[in-house]
Structures are given as C-alpha cells and as structure tokens.
C-alpha cells in the first residue's frame, strides 16, 4: 500500500489549550473576523451593545433601522432590549430576521455567524463579485473593492 497522500494527523490537534477569550468576554465570528466583546447580555439570545454592531457586521443603528450602506432593515420590537438600565441589540434575533445562519457554543460564549443572504443578492442575481476581506501572507488586507479597475483571477487550492 502506498504511503497515504497528504496525511497530517499531527496537525489535528497541534495547539495547547488556551482560553478563547478573557473570562467574562464573548467572541463573535463573522466572515473571518473574530470580535471579542467585553460586555454582552445573554438570555438564550446574544445581546450586544449597539455601539459594537459596526465592528461585528458593518451595520449601524439609525432612526430608520439597522443600516449597511444603502440597505436599512426596520427593527422589530424584540431587537432593542432594555436590561439593567441599558439598551442592547439582539444580534441573534436580527440574524434570524435576515435568515442569516448562526451556530453557538453558549457555554464557551462563542457565536459564529454565516454571511447574510441579503448581502449575497447582488452576486446571485447580477453576478457582481461578493464582498470579501482576507489578509494576505504579508499582512495586507485584501478586499474585493480594492481590485476594481483590474482583471482578477481568484483561485483556491490546498495542500491536500
């Protein structure tokens, strides 16, 4: 039998156990970003400070709703929550409204959100390249918008 190709079992668990975030914090994963929030409220839902929203998903609260560029989503009654004398934004209710999938490990206080289908509509309908943001090996942030004016080949590969 030939040696197994591209087997790296030693890489399955190569890391030492370390805290995901400082005690009492919450981590949100969104499109490759890892946002550690010092303050959140949880009651089955993920409640974040409205001021943290732009750093998480690019939306900001305006009188007309939660807005991202020209897109504004009117807020349902359950999305702004008063607790302990403070206002919180119900991020998971917002995701559910937009049919944005998410998974969570509530014990570890980590929420991971998929991309919003709303943000993908121009790709699926008009074939416009989707927004993405990645960091290259030199540490530069690469965004789809930065490629405008050039032809680009986006190509994936893997070591496997």
């Amino acid at each position: 039998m030939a040696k197994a190709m591209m087997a790296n079992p030693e890489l399955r668990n190569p890391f030492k156990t370390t805290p995901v975030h400082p005690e009492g914090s919450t981590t949100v994963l969104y499109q490759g970003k890892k946002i550690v929030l010092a303050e959140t409220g949880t009651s089955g839902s993920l409640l974040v400070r409205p001021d943290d929203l732009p750093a998480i998903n690019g939306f900001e609260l305006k009188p007309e709703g939660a807005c991202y560029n020209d897109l504004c989503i009117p807020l349902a009654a359950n999305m702004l929550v008063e607790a302990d004398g403070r206002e919180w934004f119900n991020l998971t209710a917002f995701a559910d409204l937009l049919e944005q999938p998410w998974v969570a490990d509530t014990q570890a206080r980590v929420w991971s959100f998929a991309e919003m289908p709303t943000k993908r509509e121009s790709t699926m309908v008009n074939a416009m390249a989707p927004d993405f943001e990645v960091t290259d090996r030199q540490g530069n942030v690469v965004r789809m918008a930065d490629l405008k004016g050039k032809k680009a080949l986006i190509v994936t590969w893997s070591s496997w």
Partner: protein
Amino acid sequence: MPVWQQVLEEINDPNFVIICAAEDVGGEAVAGPIFDAANPTYTQVVDVDHIISSAFNFVNVPSSAWIDEEGRIVRVDEGSYSKIHTISNGDQSIEFGNDVYTPALKDWVANGAASKHVQAPTTVASNIRVHSFDQLKADAAFRLGNLFREHGEADKADHNWAMARKLNPESVNFIRQDLTLTDEGSAGASFMKMRGRYESEGIDYYRPLDFQT
C-alpha cells in the same frame, strides 16, 4: 503553486492580478512552504476559514472566478487546472485536471469583454451554486470548529466540523480537509470511496467545464 506564477509572468499585464488562496486549516505551516517554493509575486492568502470558498459557494479545490474591471464575475466555479494530473494510491489511480483552462484565461485577459470565454451575467449567476440555509450554516460551524482547534479544544473542534460536513455534504472541501488530518490522508480509502460514489451517482466532482472551442 508555481503554475500560477508562470501564468502571471506569461500574461505580463499590470492590470491583471491573481489572488491565490490556500483553503487549509493547516495554515502557514502547511501552505507557506508550498507558496514559497513558487517564488510568487501574486497575492497569497492562507485562508484557514475558507472565506473565499464561502464567498463564491465553491465546494472543491482548485476552484476559481474571473472578475472584470467593474467587479463583475465573468466566469465562476470551474476546476482551474493547467494540465491533466494523475494521482495513485496503491493499485488505484485517478486522473484529474484539464488543459483548456489556462489558454482561455489568457484569451480573456488579452481580449476582455470581446473574449469568447466571457459569460453573460445570467449565465454566471446560474453557474453559482445556490447554497441552502443549512449549507451556509455549515460555514459558521466550520469556523467555530477552527476556533476551538486553535485553542486546543479538540472535541469541540471535531463536533463542529462534523456538523459542517453534515450540513453541507456537497462540500468536498470539508470532507477532504478533515481527511487531511487523519492517518489515511485526503486521497486514501475514504476519498476513493467518495469518488466512486460520485461517479456511480452521477455527481459532478467539479462543475463541468463549458469553454467554447
């Protein structure tokens, strides 16, 4: 990835760029030396979370998209090989790849919208895989698994990766990425079994190429 460096040099057009993304949870330790061996001048990304694949709904590597100067996709989700390859495992071997992709790419860079390989937006849109709610959710689960792996939480990593594979069984990326971290590797018995099932059930390993000749 020397092939893409060679293509970049042959095209030699300052208004053409290549973004080459390694979809690899092994990270820099695994993908970095392969990049370095190519002496690349193109943009290199080690995409541990498979962000690029998710953005374009790719389910396999190598996959690609051509983007024009206005940010419009003109081709998408094609097995981007420069030649036909053969891999063997014991007495089994499979062929993969093609020799039509690179000439078509060069034609597009040279001729732009006039290239016969440019597809209409409606064609491109129909060639982008439509991912269900569960398939999108798989991306979130995969990344949650990656986070736990990076923090040494092996059981939680495996739990979330298994969820990702279950939610998006079409993703060859998720299946083979996981196999990479086993003794049998990504081209072992499990992979051959999967390939056999794809062939017997008529499932495309890649979306069929449809370049005009």
